[in-house]
């Protein structure tokens, strides 16, 4: 039995198999140790086990990369939004007093973009581990003029700009929260995702304050100038059941109070549908 013939055979339907195995040197060693002790007939079993491990780990890493690429799309959307807002109307869209707030937020979004771009390729090689390209953005929601603008004044009216900023930040919080469970195989990345998640929440709180709202979300109240968009962003925030516990099982306070105390996740598809309004 020739191990390398087998791997060459596998290469016929999976050209990346050598890469997968090469990145699993430990499994290789494990296999080499087995080879001395096992009867030749047991080798195919050990080989199968080795490949299962290699493929399972690759799949986990692909899942993590997929989450990070999803996050990267959102971070691009935020980063470009603040860059555009800070420059809009010859730099006069945002009042001078509030500019440091948006510069600080924008600085973090740029850092998140760079962090995600640098992290995704560390998980593996090939298309699945390539950072997505920066999307084409149109914050009016007209998809580059192909449909009526949803928010025609987003870059000319400060209140509209702030409302959209709140929408992005509150959506970002929900998006990261919804993906945490898909990152548990990579502790360092789960750490970083949670660290980004709480930064987005700090941003959201501050922008809500600028909009005259409480920093936390009560019920599913989103407000904002475009209910058609913001309803989807806040749908489900009124939930009071957590890990199967109903509100009455954990507090005597009101449902309204309970909704303030917990933020809710949002499914990737829903987030992408919201974000899709601004991407063409």
């Amino acid at each position, binding site marked *: 039995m020739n191990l390398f013939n087998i791997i060459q055979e596998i290469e016929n339907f999976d050209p990346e198999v050598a890469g997968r195995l090469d990145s699993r040197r430990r499994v290789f060693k494990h296999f080499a140790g087995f080879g001395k002790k096992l009867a030749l007939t047991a080798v195919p079993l050990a080989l199968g086990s080795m490949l299962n491990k290699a493929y399972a780990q690759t799949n986990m890493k692909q899942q993590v990369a997929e989450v990070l690429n999803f996050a990267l799309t959102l971070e691009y959307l935020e980063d470009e939004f603040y860059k555009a807002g800070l420059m809009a109307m010859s730099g006069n869209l945002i009042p001078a007093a509030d500019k440091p707030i948006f510069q600080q937020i924008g600085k973090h979004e740029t*850092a998140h973009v760079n962090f995600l771009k640098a992290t995704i390729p560390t998980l593996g090689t090939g298309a699945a581990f390539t950072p997505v390209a920066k999307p084409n953005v149109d914050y009016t929601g007209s998809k580059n003029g192909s449909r009526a603008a949803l928010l025609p004044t987003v870059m000319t009216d400060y209140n509209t700009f702030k409302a959209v900023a709140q929408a992005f930040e509150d959506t970002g919080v929900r998006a990261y929260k919804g993906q945490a469970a898909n990152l548990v195989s990579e502790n360092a990345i789960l750490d970083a995702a949670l660290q980004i998640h709480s930064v987005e929440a700090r941003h959201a709180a501050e922008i809500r304050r600028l909009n005259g709202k409480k920093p936390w979300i009560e019920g599913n109240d989103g407000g904002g100038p475009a209910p058609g968009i913001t309803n989807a962003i806040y749908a489900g925030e009124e939930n009071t059941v957590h890990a199967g516990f109903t509100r009455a099982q954990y507090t005597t306070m009101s449902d309204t109070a309970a909704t303030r105390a917990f933020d809710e996740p949002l499914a990737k598809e829903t987030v992408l549908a919201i974000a899709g309004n601004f991407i063409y």
Partner: protein
Amino acid sequence: MTKIANPDEKNAGLIKTIAQPVGRRSFLKYTGAGAALSTLLIVGCDNDDDDMNGDGVNLGSGDIGILNYAYALEQLESAFYTQVISTKFTGMTAMETEILTEIRDNEMIHRDFLKAAINAKAPGSIIPNLTPNFTAIDFTNRNSVLTTARTFEDLGVSAYNGAGKLFTDTGLGLDLLLIGGKIVSVEARHAAMIRQLLGSATAFAGDDVVSADKGLDVIRMPMEVLALAQPFITEKINGNNLPK
């Protein structure tokens, strides 16, 4: 894990590991190691909740230990804001009163949720009510109250951020990871608001708490968090059995 291929080294590694405080995740790596380990695992989980043996309030181990850890922090925050509202600092505005009252309510709901969850998932494992030690805080003084609030909120954010990876990767652990996520972003909202009341325009996510180059919030492991929280708690908190 490379040691597992050699049975002798595996056993040596196991003994060495168990002699030290062991993280849940480390334990799981050795689940195939046999019955002796199972016994040790059960003993490891059988912790005392009280101060009878002089090692303080033992938070326990595994997922429930992490819940007790969060429960201890939420008890501390709840007690703090209850005091803040019952003895308001000089000049507390109507807006500040509303904000601080709602933060108090949020913390009490977090505390009571964790209590309900621990009692349902692991009856008898919950830590007792803790006695706060707020002697260092001047509750009549706005700056003293708000700087302490900032400390507690930033600490809470860093604690939940660090605890995410300590939950088991399946079943209950995944549920609890999500719960932690639902709570931590509310703590971050608190932190941002308190910081805004205290500081400059960018304090809500200032460079002192969010790294300027990476845009990452603070993250702390339980032992570091407990060391920072301990001065505000009368009982000695023992987190030695928590996952690491």
